[in-house]
């Protein structure tokens, strides 16, 4: 489900490729040894708060330099390169997305949305040395120009430890209504 897309792998930098190659495949450690579920949950709550507060630059700073952010258009979508996605941003496009959010001429955010998120059911799905995949449920209410929308679904974060802090290597958001007719999406989930 949350696998790194093949193409991203192929285009990965030599450094990140070495890192992937050197990832231990068998010696899985208990989550608690490297990532405490409580620490993960606190991290997710912190991320949700940054997004609700519109601190998108700070949100972007949570991602690793070769991170990707993905909102599939189909339930159980296998990859982001052979099928369209509501959002599929590599690091470069994610930076552009966040920069646009601060533009005074982003007309689809004039007036701006207000959002309120609930993040819950946090569980560590898979943990290795210095990295883990965390699954959670989310609900996001978006209010803009007299209309309120409700989004919800499952999120998977690949969290890594870098310089002693947690960072997002990738994030996949599966909306329950990902294949519904939908008005434009401007605020990241």
């Amino acid at each position, binding site marked *: 489900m949350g696998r790194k897309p093949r193409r991203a792998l192929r285009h990965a930098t030599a450094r990140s490729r070495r890192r992937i190659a050197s990832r231990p495949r068998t010696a899985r450690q208990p989550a608690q040894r490297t990532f405490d579920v409580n620490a993960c949950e606190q991290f997710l709550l912190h991320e949700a708060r940054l997004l609700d507060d519109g601190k998108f630059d700070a949100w972007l700073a949570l991602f690793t330099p070769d991170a990707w952010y993905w*909102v599939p258009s189909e339930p159980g979508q296998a990859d982001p390169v*052979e099928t*369209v996605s509501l959002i599929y941003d590599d690091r470069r*496009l994610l930076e552009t997305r966040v920069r*646009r959010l601060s533009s005074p001429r*982003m007309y689809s955010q004039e007036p701006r949305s207000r959002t309120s998120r609930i993040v819950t059911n946090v569980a560590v799905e898979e943990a290795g040395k210095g990295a883990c995949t965390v699954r959670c449920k989310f609900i996001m209410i978006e209010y803009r120009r007299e209309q309120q929308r409700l989004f919800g679904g499952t999120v998977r974060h690949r969290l890594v430890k870098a310089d002693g802090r947690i960072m997002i290597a990738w994030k996949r958001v599966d909306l329950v209504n990902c294949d519904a007719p*939908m*008005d434009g999406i401007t605020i990241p989930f």
Partner: protein
Amino acid sequence: MSANLSEFVQPGRVHRQIYTDPAIFELELQRIFGTAWIYVGHESQVKIPGDYFRTFIGRKPVVLVRDTEGAIRVIHNQCAHRGSLVVANDKGNAEEFQCCYHGWTYYLDGRLKAVPLQHGYPRDFDPKSPTTAMVQVPRVTSYRGFVFASEAADGPSLEDFLGPMTTSLDDMVDRAPDGEIEVAGGVFRHAYDGNWKLYLENLCDAAHPIFTHRSSIDAAQQQSDEAHSDGSGEIAIRQMRQNGAPYSFWESQVGIWTYPNGHSYLGDYHDDAKLVAALKDPVFRDYIAAMEKKKGKAETRRVLEVRRWNSNVYPNLSFMSQFQQLRVVHPIDVNRTVVHTYNFRLKGAPEQMFRNTISFANTVNGTGSLVLTDDLEIYNRIGMGLSSAGAEWIEIGRGMQSDSPDGHGGWRGQNSTSEIYIRNMLDAWLGYMTGSSLHADAAAKQQREGARAGS
């Protein structure tokens, strides 16, 4: 609604009411969507007998299906008994269609196959009568795999209706080295609170990107190319930067062509040397090699020199051959529209070409696109603005002084910033709705003046 619809469209202006009046919307469903050739789907969506695909003609639910003989049919998705929707899944394969209410069962071409408790019906009950079938849409025709249906039993043939737009559809198919394309890669369904006509009226509008898309142009121009990209972001950012081309570019290098029945395309734009899949790009080089191997050098050159951006077939279809995109407009209500967008795979092309198609789709057609979201905002704002009678008329006269017949039944705009294609769509609208045509009036007037000058 005013008694005389023909007054709503005048030279260079149109009345706001045709975008806001529910009664006019209902008439459009009858007179435009109920008579014109409506794009329904592509043959690759129903490859083998039993394959079906659920869609709409106007607001009427229909099923595109390949019957047991392999023929393509379009049937109304309604049970002849109590009117229930029969086919509920978006797509699939079926041996027959069965209504889940009382079990009426239909052949794939819509004919009634079996009825439980048939002995209970009156003696004149005829299971072979068209009134006990899922009703077939009377005319269904494909042009090179693109399936259109018309609810009018008589009228122009599909090719007459399309006119020179067949060359744009040819361009969609001819770009495949194997000469075949297929729908692939999922679908976007994006929605807005505005009239359906607004969508096509934006797709050849070269004057809006520099304003509407300013935020994504600026953000893309400021983006460092040093940041990591797996290739998809690179395509997106290049496209967004291209939206920032100055007016001089649009006025000097991009043209607009319009044709009878409301069709149009932008041309001379995004030539293959400037494309993301640029000539020096290794993927594009492989593609050209595959094309030349299958089609020869001369034909490959001919195909790649057809340079079109959006091609619009009025009233419900827009497509773009260079990145294999297709959009279908679904009118939901006078002030609500949903657009379904599809991608095509070019058979015989390098796999990476299709991945570029997907990246491009995410960029320009994606619900979370950095570009499309500002277009949707415009449609919403027009919807809100036009609901006010504060100003009654909409100005659509840009470039009008230079509209000129091209000698083949079409009209050229002076350049891509002309609103000629909107005037052309509304002329078709007048034709469907009232039987009159401003273009025909203008052409007759020119002819009269020419005759006077010659005498």
